Each structure stands twice: as structure tokens, then as C-alpha cells.
């Protein structure tokens, strides 16, 4: 029978509750009633929701390029902002007035109210529960009238679907046109590069690295040619000088005097030389000999000067040979010069090859790059063309309505159950808190344990508060008053609830 709780704190709490039960007993039901009243008296708002899913394309993604799969992840916000523009919403207000009971508001204000009462959230396409990452989203719209809530939600959903279709078309076409112009630009640039390359080749074609072996060979040949020609030139020069000597010894004319005189002159010169060694300059012999030489020389000069026409056949033959040899020599020299020039030309080409090579490589590289990007752009252009036709044929990714906004049957706001629950929780907390507060702020003695703590003595007996009949009556009356007040409150709240829900 004696079943004292083992937990002293629980026991003391129960003790407090036993003493202060009036606080929770009055405050808690009062709070609940208040919550019920508030929940039903607040203007109910109805929520109509439509859900749109981003349907994946029936064509593999690889064929579609990058920009057609970005909606779900990145463009959700963008779509929302583009669709929920004041302009769009004003048009909507013009079509359906969602707040006919508020004639004091301008269409712009009503548009803003629509925006305020619309909530868009990503949801799971199957369970329709809120989800962080999803390819479906719900559009919720709140309105005091369930029919209008549905109508406006329908319009909003239509705006989204319309926006999607239009922008996708525009985007696909835009991509295609962009790529097209890009391809054109690239083609032009490639043409320019080709021309440049051709020009360069024409200019430095013989110095290009491809021509190096050939140049070396040619240089070698020219060198050899030059060397042999120079040998021939030397032979020809010898012959010319020989013929010249031969010619000098011949008299152009057939008159022999000339030859005699020459012989005599030579003899005289020899005699003179001998005499000069033996005698002084003024020796008569020397003088004589000098005179004789002068005379002879003058004679020879006189005979040779007019030289009218050589008639000596030997002389003529030698002279002709000499002329021919000289011509040969000249020809050979010219040839050698040409050969030398050629050699120099080739060595110059060979020397300039590295510079030209660098320049050429750059040009060629640019050209190749341009060609590559052109090929890429061409491939993309093909894809974009495909995407454009897919969008046109509704084969690409697109918004699909998976839940039509319906007519809500019960109001979403206020969340009646939630408010009542809140009232319950709050009322309980308040009631027990008040009991606790009253207990803590009470300076008077409470209970046997309190008494023992204060006096150090065990209580010998406890006598309850005695009630006489009038006190009992007044207590009953008070209780009846509280019960009556609660009953009245329940009835009032019930009436409010009934009138609100009807």
C-alpha cells in the first residue's frame, strides 16, 4: 500500500502539481479554446497547387549539346524570375481578378499580392514532397476563395509552360544562329590564312626546309662547275699569252727590213752594252752606238707606225688564233662568274632557312588551329541544328504538367490542427510554468518536507484546512462558475467554428 515514488524529484513535482493543479487546469484548457477560436476565426486561405516536371529528352543527351539540360539544375531561379514578372502578373490580374473583394487595390498591387501568395518549391515528382534536388517543382497559390485559387494557379502554371516552350525555341534557334555566324567567321579567317601561306611559300619557297637537300645538291654542283670552269680559264689565259708572244715576234708585213733592223738593233744593243762596260759614256764608240741605235729605232718606228695592212700570212694566222683564244677566255670567265653567283645564291638560301622555317611553322600552326576550330564549330552546328529540330518536334527536354491545380477542399491557412496543437502545447507549458512560478515565488511554508527543512523537526501531525458548509458552498459555487465559464467558452468557440466552416 505504501508505494512512495522512488524518484524524489518526481515525487516533489507531483506534490507541487497536487498543490497547484488549478493553474494548469484553468490555463491549459483556456489556451486550447483560444487556439481553436483563433484557428477557425482567422480568414481561411485555400491553396491550389500545380506541379511541373522537367521531362528528360527522348533523345540521348550526347546529341543535344550542353545547353538543353541545364534547366533543372541552374535555371530554376531564372525561370521563376522571368515568369513571375509584374508585367505577366498584371496581365493575369486583367484576365482573372483574384481579389474582387478588394476594389481599393490597383492591378499592380494585386499583382504583387499574387507574387506574395505564390510559393514555388522543388518537389519530388512522385511523392510531391519538398526536395532539395529535383527535376519537378510545385507552384502553390493561396487565395481566400478556393475557385479563384484554382483559376490563378492554373494561369501561373500556364505561364510557366508557355515560357518554357517559347524560350526553348528561342534558345535553340539562338544557339544555331550563333554557331552559324561563328563558322562563317572562322571560314573567312581560314581563307585569309591560306592566302598568306601561299604568298609566303611563293616568296620563300626555295628557302623552305623542304628545299634544303635540293639546295645543298645544287650548291655542290655549281661549285664543281665553277671549279672546272676556272681551270679552263687558266688554260685559256696561258694560250693567249703564248699566242701574244708569238705574234710579237712576227712582222706584220712581208718587208724583211724590219726583221733585219731588228736583228741589227739587237746586235747594236748588245755591242752598246759591252762597250758601256768597257768605256765611259762619252766614249766615241758608245756615242756612236747610241746614235746608231736611235737611228735604227726611229727607222723601225717609222716603218711600223703606218702599219697599214699586215700582209704577213704567219702574222695573220697567229693574230686570228689569238683573237679566238681571247674570245674563249672571255666566255669562260663569264661562265665562271655565273657559276660563282649560283654558289653564293645557294649558300645564301641555306643560311636563311632557319628564319624562314620559324615563320613558316607559325603560319602553318595558326592555319591548323583555325582549321580545327572550324571543324569543331561545324560539328556543333550540326548538333544545334539537330537540337533545333528536336525542340521544333517536341522531342527535347520540356516542362510537363504532372499535377493540375485543383480546387482545394479545405483551407491551407490557417493550419487549424497546427494552431490547436500549438495552443495545446503552449497552454500546457504555460499552465505548468505558472504552477511552477507560483510555487517558486511563494514565500510560505509548503508541505511536511519544507517544514522539516526549516525547523529540523519532524512534523508530528498535519491537519487539513477545515471547511464549513458555507465555505464548501462557495467553493462549489466557484467550481461551478469555472465549469460554466468553460462550457460557455466551448459553446462560443463551437459556434464560431461552425459559422466559420459553413
Amino acid at each position, binding site marked *: 500500500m505504501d508505494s512512495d515514488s522512488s524518484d524524489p524529484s518526481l515525487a516533489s513535482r507531483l506534490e507541487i502539481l497536487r498543490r497547484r493543479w488549478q493553474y494548469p487546469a484553468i490555463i491549459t484548457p483556456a489556451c486550447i479554446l483560444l487556439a481553436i477560436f483563433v484557428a477557425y476565426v482567422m480568414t481561411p486561405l485555400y491553396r491550389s497547387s500545380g506541379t511541373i516536371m522537367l521531362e528528360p529528352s527522348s533523345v540521348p543527351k550526347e546529341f543535344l549539346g550542353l545547353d538543353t539540360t541545364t534547366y533543372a539544375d541552374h535555371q530554376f531561379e531564372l525561370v521563376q524570375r522571368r515568369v513571375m514578372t509584374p508585367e505577366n502578373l498584371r496581365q493575369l490580374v486583367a484576365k482573372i481578378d483574384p481579389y474582387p473583394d478588394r476594389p481599393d487595390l490597383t492591378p499592380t498591387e494585386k499583382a504583387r499580392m499574387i507574387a506574395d501568395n505564390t510559393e514555388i518549391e522543388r518537389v519530388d515528382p512522385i511523392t510531391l514532397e519538398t526536395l532539395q534536388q529535383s527535376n519537378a517543382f510545385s507552384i502553390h497559390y493561396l487565395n481566400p476563395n478556393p475557385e479563384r485559387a484554382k483559376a490563378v494557379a492554373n494561369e501561373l502554371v500556364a505561364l510557366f509552360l508557355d515560357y518554357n516552350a517559347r524560350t526553348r525555341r528561342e534558345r535553340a534557334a539562338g544557339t544555331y544562329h550563333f554557331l552559324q555566324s561563328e563558322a562563317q567567321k572562322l571560314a573567312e579567317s581560314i581563307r585569309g590564312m591560306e592566302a598568306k601561306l601561299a604568298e609566303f611559300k611563293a616568296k620563300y619557297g626555295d628557302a623552305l626546309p623542304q628545299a634544303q637537300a635540293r639546295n645543298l645538291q645544287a650548291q655542290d654542283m655549281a661549285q664543281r662547275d665553277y671549279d672546272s670552269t676556272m681551270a679552263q680559264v687558266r688554260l685559256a689565259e696561258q694560250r693567249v699569252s703564248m699566242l701574244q708572244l708569238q705574234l710579237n715576234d712576227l712582222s706584220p708585213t712581208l718587208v724583211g727590213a724590219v726583221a733585219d733592223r731588228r736583228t741589227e738593233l739587237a746586235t747594236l744593243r748588245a755591242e752598246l752594252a759591252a762597250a758601256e762596260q768597257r768605256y765611259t759614256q762619252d766614249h766615241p764608240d758608245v756615242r756612236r752606238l747610241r746614235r746608231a741605235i736611235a737611228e735604227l729605232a726611229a727607222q723601225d718606228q717609222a716603218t711600223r707606225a703606218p702599219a697599214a695592212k699586215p700582209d704577213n700570212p704567219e702574222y695573220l694566222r697567229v693574230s686570228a688564233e689569238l683573237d679566238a683564244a681571247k674570245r674563249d677566255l672571255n666566255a669562260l670567265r663569264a661562265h665562271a662568274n655565273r657559276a660563282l653567283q649560283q654558289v653564293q645564291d645557294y649558300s645564301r638560301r641555306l643560311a636563311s632557312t632557319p628564319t624562314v622555317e620559324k615563320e613558316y611553322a607559325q603560319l602553318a600552326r595558326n592555319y591548323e588551329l583555325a582549321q580545327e576550330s572550324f571543324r569543331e564549330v561545324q560539328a556543333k552546328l550540326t548538333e544545334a541544328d539537330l537540337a533545333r529540330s528536336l525542340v521544333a518536334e517536341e522531342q527535347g527536354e520540356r516542362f510537363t504538367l504532372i499535377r493540375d491545380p485543383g480546387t482545394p477542399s479545405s483551407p491551407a491557412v490557417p493550419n487549424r490542427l497546427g494552431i490547436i496543437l500549438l495552443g495545446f502545447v503552449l497552454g500546457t507549458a504555460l499552465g505548468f510554468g505558472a504552477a511552477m512560478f507560483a510555487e517558486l515565488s511563494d514565500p510560505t511554508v509548503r508541505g511536511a518536507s519544507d517544514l522539516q527543512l526549516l525547523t529540523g523537526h519532524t512534523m508530528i501531525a498535519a*491537519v487539513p484546512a477545515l471547511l464549513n458548509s458555507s465555505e464548501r458552498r462557495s467553493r462549489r459555487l466557484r467550481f461551478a462558475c469555472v465549469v460554466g465559464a468553460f462550457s460557455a467558452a466551448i459553446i462560443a468557440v463551437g459556434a464560431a467554428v461552425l459559422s466559420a466552416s459553413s
Partner: protein
Amino acid sequence: MIIEQAIERMRRQSPNTQRAALSVSGMRRDDTLTAPPVELKFARVDYDLDTCERCHILVPETDGNETATGATAYRMLRTRVLHLMRSNRWSTLALTSPGAGEGKSVTALNLALSLAREQNQNVFLIDLDMSNPSVCAYLGIAPPRGIVHFFAGQVEPQQVFFTIGIERLALAGGIEATPYSSELLASGRLELLLKYVQSVSPGALILLDLPPVLATDDFLVAAPRADATLLVIAEGLTRRDGVVRAMEVLSGFTLAGVMLNRSRERVTDYYGRRYYYTKRSTSAAHAR
């Protein structure tokens, strides 16, 4: 309930059985218990039942819930007080409380009524709270001689006591307040009064209703005359600091115990029964 009735019947029929039971429970046998209490021959004043009911005085006629719930608790108090007084050979018990209005006089009166129901001793209740006398007022009576007159030396002890038609119970008190209560108490007449009681009824239990501890010095004047003091604390009324201060004042005197008035506690009696005061009592039979 049936058992209780049986016990009560047994007690009435044979006091010896009761005494045997007491000795078993560890009480010392007192010689005074062997003699039946003398008959009290004082002037009789009949109490007013309505006033008693209004003032929560558990006279036998008051019946119903209040009497039932209260009687159980007072029976408990009575038993414990008796135990203490007998085991300590106390004859005089002072009742006081830290402040006024904490149910001290009601407790004294109800305890006296309850004690008088025991057949073994006479009970004398003396209202010494002369600055605020209330015992007589609670009974709705005017005593033939006010106790103030006795302290003033105007009447003899035998004149100041009166009975109210309840066996083994005599009272002394008044309805007029006096501002000189402290001086009157210090006059030495109190000893005279107590000696008179001892002489008239040896072995009687004397309850002194003293003024509040913290209000006046009356308690300090009168308490040395009592063997022990019972401190009455009212739950929800007596302040905790008041209790502490009262305990300081009482530290020089024998404290019989502390009792809780207006209690919302549940208590367990000697038999392990638990009483919930919110319940309707079943022991209405004890009322008479």
C-alpha cells in the same frame, strides 16, 4: 472502519485494555492513569453550534465532511501528543504559532476536544492570548468570568473555569481583549492557576493557548510555565522566514513538536493508512 469502531467500543468498556495496549507500544506506565479522572464541577456554558461550525470547531454535533476529515487528522494529532506527554511526563503543553491567524486557537480547541474524548484524563484549555482572545469567540460563548479578571486578582481559580457540556473538558478564557496581557501573565497568577488545576484534577492535561511567538513577548513570559511547546504552522500562510525566526525564539524552550495546519499533505497514520483529505471520510462514527 469496523475495526476502529470495535476499538473505540473496547476502550469505552475497558480502560485497562487500552492501557495494556499503550504499554505494549512502549509507553511508560503512569500512576495517574490508573485512577479514573475526577468529575469536573465547574459552571456550564453551552456552546453555539452554528458558531462552532463556522469557526471549524469540531464539537460532537458538527457532522459531515468537515468533521470527518478533520476528526481523523485531530485524532492523529491527539495520539501523538498524548504519546509525547506521557512518555515525557509532561502535563502542560503550550500551543503557539509564528504569526497570528495561523489556526493556533482552532487547533488548541480541537485538540482539547479530541483529547477529552479519551476517557483517561481531564483536559484543561486555558486561553492565554489575552490581547486577542478567541477560544470563547469560536465557541460562541461568553464565559461567566473572564480570565483577565483572574489575572487581575478579581476572581478565584475555581471561578474562572467552566465546562461546555463535554465530559472531561474544562476551559478558561475570555472575550475582552487587554493591552496588558504581558504584565498580567508575568504577575505569577499563572502558577496559581496551574497549581489549582493540578490539585483539582491530578494527571489532567493542560493546554495553554499562547499568543503568537513573533507578535508579542507574551510567549516568552508564559512559556517557562509550560512543560513543552507545540508550534503550529499554517501551510500557505506562515512565511518560511517566520518559521525560522520562531524556531530561534523557541530554541530556549522544550519543543514538543511542529504541526502543520491547513495542510494539503497526505499523512500516514500509525497503521500505515494513508489519508487523502480530498476524500470523503468514512469515520463519521467517531464524531460522537
